[in-house]
């Protein structure tokens, strides 16, 4: 993507293509600010794409952090409305195991109700009836309005919304420096990760929404934020084991949440502080895999005999309170910093901390601050206006009635693109042909993603469609996907390099859990790609991130 926006001055430059950045770009654009969203790699390439995908009810924080809990339940209700195609209202259970004791549960229900969370105490037998996958030894259970949320869809929808409201979007552009006019930030210097081209974008306000990478971006602007990267590892199981979110009813700990997401289930997380030089190359260790399995089996014993598909790790941006630079007092709440008042650097805002659940609120805080700086007084409407794909649709009822008659891939696509599914061509053999068989992604869905959803490579395509996320991890679909991309960008060498990096990225996530069926499948995949097709063993490690 060539940067053609060099001469223009934006009201707002948002850096960071995760949920917070995309949400902020959407909010700014909806308030009539001319906005550009800049991302170093691809949307959701950072922490937004590497979490549980849990739509918190807030119950998890009800005891330890009532304020966050209340925030969560408010956002939970909002997202179920405005992002309904990204959300699945699975409901959740907080279960008490014999080893945990019932003390926590007794206080828990009251804490939840105080925070406004509809928590319902269940008999263990009733909980087991509702969720047969739960450990049958539970001695207590509380039902809460937890759900699952697909962060890839959520961010894509926010980007689409920003664009519909006039925002520009640049992916694969890294901020290398800031343009300053005295103590005022007035632009960012960019370097394309595709071709190395340098450019400058001018704007009145720059919002740093880069998660943990915001630490570095702030440094480039000459200000210091004390952030600490905390790695959280998770395991993906091959199919949907549970249909309700399962939580341990105890103080938040390791591996105590099992979330059903799309076709799979995810157990997590661990929590380990890591040095900054590891945030772009995180590995899931054997110890973490063991811990996740050992604790996961306590929530749902059948995890012990379910195939583990892959492991991945995300990094939480923990922000030290400004009053305690030692880093001991860490906030998990939203941190919105006005660097003008804090550091005397005007035109620069950092929005960080928080969590996926509160991305919209974070965006609202940052946009409110930007509006104040720009002297704009327009209300935030992101809690009322549905995201693209979640609009109420007159065809809704009709679609529900006919979903049985849709092909499996169209049913799957409905889940991914919501009311925008109509943009995907269907009805002829060429369009309907499957690219990804595990996740039911058709040729037409790939074409739609490539044309409309900022897809440069197979990894981007995976995030927009779930291509390669199924049990075969790209074995069958990667080469087909590469073929389709090649038709669009017409460069065979690029397609081959892309294919090699994609397969390497898939392998990176399979490696920590490579035993049993996953090992057999990985072996078969390597025969196919290296043995039969002669794909290079060492992929050219150019642009794309290697984090699983």
């Amino acid at each position, binding site marked *: 993507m060539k940067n053609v926006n060099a001469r223009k001055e934006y009201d707002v430059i948002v850096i960071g293509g995760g949920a917070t950045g995309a949400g902020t770009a959407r909010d700014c654009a909806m308030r009539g600010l001319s906005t550009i969203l800049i991302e170093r790699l691809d949307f959701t390439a950072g922490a937004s794409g590497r979490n549980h995908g849990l739509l918190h009810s807030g119950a998890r924080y009800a005891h330890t952090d009532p304020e966050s809990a209340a925030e969560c339940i408010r956002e939970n209700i909002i997202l179920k409305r405005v992002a309904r195609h990204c959300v699945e209202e699975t409901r959740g259970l907080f279960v008490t195991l014999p080893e945990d004791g019932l003390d926590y549960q007794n206080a828990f229900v009251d804490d939840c109700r105080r925070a406004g969370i509809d928590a319902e105490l269940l008999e263990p037998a009733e909980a087991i009836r509702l969720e047969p996958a739960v450990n049958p030894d539970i001695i207590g259970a509380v039902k809460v309005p937890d759900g699952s949320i697909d962060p890839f869809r959520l961010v894509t929808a926010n980007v689409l919304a920003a664009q519909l409201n006039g925002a520009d979007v640049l992916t694969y552009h890294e901020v290398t420096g800031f343009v300053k006019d005295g103590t005022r930030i007035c632009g960012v210097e960019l370097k394309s990760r595709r071709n190395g081209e340098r450019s400058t974008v001018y704007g009145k306000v720059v919002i740093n929404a880069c998660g943990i990478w915001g630490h570095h971006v702030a440094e480039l602007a000459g200000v210091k934020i004390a952030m600490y990267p905390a790695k959280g590892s998770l395991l993906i199981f091959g199919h949907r084991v549970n249909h309700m979110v399962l939580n341990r009813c105890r103080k938040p700990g390791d591996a105590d949440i099992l979330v059903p997401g799309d076709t799979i289930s995810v157990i997590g997380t661990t929590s380990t502080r890591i040095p900054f030089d590891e945030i772009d190359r995180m590995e899931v260790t054997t110890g973490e895999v063991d811990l996740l399995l050992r604790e996961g089996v306590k929530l749902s014993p059948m995890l012990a005999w379910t195939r583990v598909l892959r492991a991945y790790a995300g990094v939480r941006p923990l922000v030290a309170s400004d009053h305690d630079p030692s880093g001991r007092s860490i906030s998990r709440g939203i941190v919105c910093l006005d660097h003008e008042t804090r550091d005397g650097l005007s035109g620069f805002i950092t929005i960080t901390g928080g969590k996926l659940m509160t991305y919209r609120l974070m965006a609202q805080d940052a946009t409110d601050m930007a509006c104040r700086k720009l002297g704009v007084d327009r209300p935030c409407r992101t809690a009322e206006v549905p995201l693209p794909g979640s609009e109420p649709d007159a065809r809704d009822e009709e679609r529900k009635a006919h979903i049985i008659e849709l092909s499996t891939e169209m049913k799957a696509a409905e889940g991914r693109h919501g009311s925008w599914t109509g943009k995907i061509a269907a009805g002829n053999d060429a369009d309907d042909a499957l690219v990804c068989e595990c996740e039911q992604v058709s040729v037409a869905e790939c074409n739609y993603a490539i044309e409309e959803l900022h897809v440069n490579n197979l990894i981007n395509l995976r995030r927009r469609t779930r291509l390669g996320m199924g049990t075969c991890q790209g*074995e069958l679909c990667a080469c087909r996907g590469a073929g389709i991309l090649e038709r669009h960008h017409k460069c065979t060498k690029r397609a081959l390099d892309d294919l090699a990096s994609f397969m390497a990225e898939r392998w990176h996530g399979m490696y920590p859990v490579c035993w049993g069926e996953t090992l057999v499948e990985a072996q078969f995949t390597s025969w196919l790609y290296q043995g039969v097709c002669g794909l290079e063993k060492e992929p050219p490690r150019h642009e794309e991130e290697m984090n699983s």
Partner: protein
Amino acid sequence: MMTLQQQNISDNNFESCIKCTICTVYCPVTAVNPDYPGPKQAGPDGERYRLKKPVFYDEALKYCLNCKRCEVACPNNVKIGDIIQSARIKYAKGKPSLRDTMLANTDFMGNMATRMAPLVNFTLGLRPVKYLLDRTMKIDDRRTFPRYASQRFESWFGRHAAASQDSYPHTVSYFHGCYVNYNYPQLGKDLVKVLNALGVGVHLLDGEKCCGVAKIANRCVDEATRDAHTNMKAIREATARGDETVATSSTCCFTLRDEYPHVLRVDNHDVRDHIMLATRLIYRLIDEGKAKVAFRPDYRKRVAYHVPCHMEKLGWTIYSTSLLKMIPGLEFIPLDSHCCGIAGTYGFKKEYYDYSQAIGEPLFRQIRESGCDFVACDCETCKWQIEMSTGVPVENPVSVLAAALDIAKTRELNGVAAIPAVE
């Protein structure tokens, strides 16, 4: 620590699929019907989606023949056919239609039909009746119905054979199945004749019910399960008195051994090894020198052998073909392993008839071109399909043996000449 990882081996059979897609290549339906998603997608891939939400059940799974060729092809032992049948049973909408229920209840229909067999056979052969069945019940009017017998095999056996069977040095129990009982008792008579000549007496199972394969295919699962329990009880009694249980139908045999535990969840592990195809028992008797055979010197036939799909799945083709090859005057022509397309009741249904015939076409062509006197085959529905589609007669290998053996001499060789032979 590592033991956790070593023990985490998937117990979900569908997760063993490595997506090689060999099953889809071997699927007879995929080749002729683009609406069928193929065994990989219908089976392990679809299972993940159905586990996510039942709405992902694809009604196109009804096109599955349940031939199990996908399972034979699978290098990783995924029970693809079982996954598909179980999904149809669990998720398919609506109750089985009247037609499907009638086709499924081969025992009930057979029981009624044999009471007035000449009338039923005459009526079912009439064009207007076939037209009516086609239009009202969607049973294809191009299909030739199997004829019903006037006397059930069980009645014949009770009257003519039962008394002498315990005089033989060994005995087996015979699972005759609906076809032998109601349509073609001659095959049962041939089995008694051959086994007796080899020194083996034949018992019938106490209260045998239909094996249930048609009921499973037509989703009449409660009845199938009930019958399965009755059959297992009878087979356990037979095993307890020292009898092996033999069948002349490869499909009945396969159902008793594999569909019961895999699809109906009826446990049979204690007696499964004692359920076998008659040709396997006969071959082993001869091979181990426990029985001797003498063939008629004047027997001259050119015979093409067709492997039924469920025979392929059992892996026992070698017993039937080896027996045929023992016959000195028999010229053996192996046919390519290819589904005939009828799949029990499937080929009777109007909506599948054309697929059924298209699947079988390469086989029919090969049979027509082989110049054989008849086709040998261990499955009755393959027999209907091949006879109807090629005009070439089909015989069970047991009947071939009955015709080729010098029965009197064989009885003498096995020391049972003194026992009065059944006629």
